C-alpha cells in the first residue's frame, strides 16, 4: 500500500486516527502488508510542505512515527499558528531537533518529496489526499479518500485471499 498524504489535510488525519494504528498492528507488523508513506502536500495548504520536510528529516533520525503522530494530533494548532518546528520539537531530543532543522534548511529532503509528488501526479493521477494505492497480484488499484478500519480490514482480507 502506498498512501499519498498531506499533513494539513483533515481527511488524512481521519485516516491516520481511524485506521493507521490498527493497520500497522494487524497487517504491517505481521508482514502481511508493506506500507509506504508518500508525501503529497497540496498547494492550498500553506504549511503542509514544511510539515512534510520535517517528517522526512525526522525519518532520517529514526523518528518518523513520533513526528507523524504529533503532526496529525496537533494539526489544527500548527495549521493556525504555522509553528511546525515547535510542534515537532515536542517529540524530539535537542540533538535530534538540531539534525532535523539542518536537514530541512539544507533542502536535503526536498528531492524525495518532489519524487513522491511526481509519482502521484504522473503515475497514479492523484488529485486528492489521502489516496491509497493498493498493489496486489500484479495489479494496481488507486483509491481516493478515507477508509474506516472495518471496511479496510474486509477489503485486505479478501485481497490477500483470506475469508
Amino acid at each position, binding site marked *: 500500500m502506498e498512501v499519498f498524504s498531506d499533513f494539513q489535510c*483533515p*481527511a488524512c488525519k*481521519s485516516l491516520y486516527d481511524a485506521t493507521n494504528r490498527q493497520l500497522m498492528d494487524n497487517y504491517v507488523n505481521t508482514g502481511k502488508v508493506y506500507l509506504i508513506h508518500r508525501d503529497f502536500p497540496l498547494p492550498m495548504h500553506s504549511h503542509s510542505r514544511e510539515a512534510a520536510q520535517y517528517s522526512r528529516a525526522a525519518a532520517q533520525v529514526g523518528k518518523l512515527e513520533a513526528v507523524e503522530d504529533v503532526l496529525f494530533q496537533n494539526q489544527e494548532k500548527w495549521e493556525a499558528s504555522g509553528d511546525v518546528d515547535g510542534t515537532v520539537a515536542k517529540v524530539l531530543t535537542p540533538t535530534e531537533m538540531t539534525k532535523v532543522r539542518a536537514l530541512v534548511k539544507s533542502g536535503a529532503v526536498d528531492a524525495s518529496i518532489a519524487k513522491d509528488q511526481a509519482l502521484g501526479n504522473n503515475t497514479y493521477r492523484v*488529485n*486528492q489526499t489521502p489516496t491509497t494505492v493498493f498493489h496486489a497480484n500484479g495489479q494496481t*488499484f488507486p*483509491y*481516493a*479518500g*478515507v*477508509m*474506516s478500519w472495518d*471496511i479496510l480490514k*474486509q*477489503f485486505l482480507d*479478501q*485481497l490477500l485471499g483470506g475469508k
Partner: protein
Amino acid sequence: MWLGRLILGPIFIYAGYSKALLPNSHFWPWFFFKFSLSMNIANFALQVDAFKLLPPWGVQFVAHTLPFTEIVLGFLVLVGWQLRIFGTMLAAIMVGFSVVVTRAYLLHMNINCGCFATPQPINMEKVLEDAGMAILAVLMAAFAIIEARKPHPWSAPSASGAVAATAPATK
C-alpha cells in the same frame, strides 16, 4: 417545466452517481465494488460532516441515502412521472442545498461543497448557482402542480361550463 426537467433531472442523476460511484470506481470483482462504494460514501459523509449541521447519525443517514435519492428523483423528474410529487421533493432538496451552501458561505467555512465528486469550494459563484437551480426547481414544481389541477386537454366542457369527461352521445 420542461426546462426544469431537462436541466435538473440529469444534474441530479449525475450528482447522485458521482457521490456513490466516484472517484473510486472499481466495479469488479464484487468486493472491489463494495469497497469502492463504501469509500465513496465515507468520503461524502466527511463532506456532509464538514458543514457542522447534523449529528453523527444524521451525517451517516444523509451520506447513505442522498446519493441514491438524487439518482431516483433525477430520473423520475426527467421522465416527468408524477412531476408534482417528485418535482416538489426535488425542489425541497434543492432549496435545502441552497440554504446550507449559503449558510456555509456566510460563515466563511472553507469547505468542499460536496455536490459532486470533484472538490468545489463554496464561493459566491456556488451560492448563486445553487440559488438559481433552487428557483428553477421551485418554478418547475409550481408549474407541475398548476398543470395537474387543470383538466385533461382531451376532456370536453360540460353545459355548466365546468369541464368533465363526456361519454359519446347515444342515438
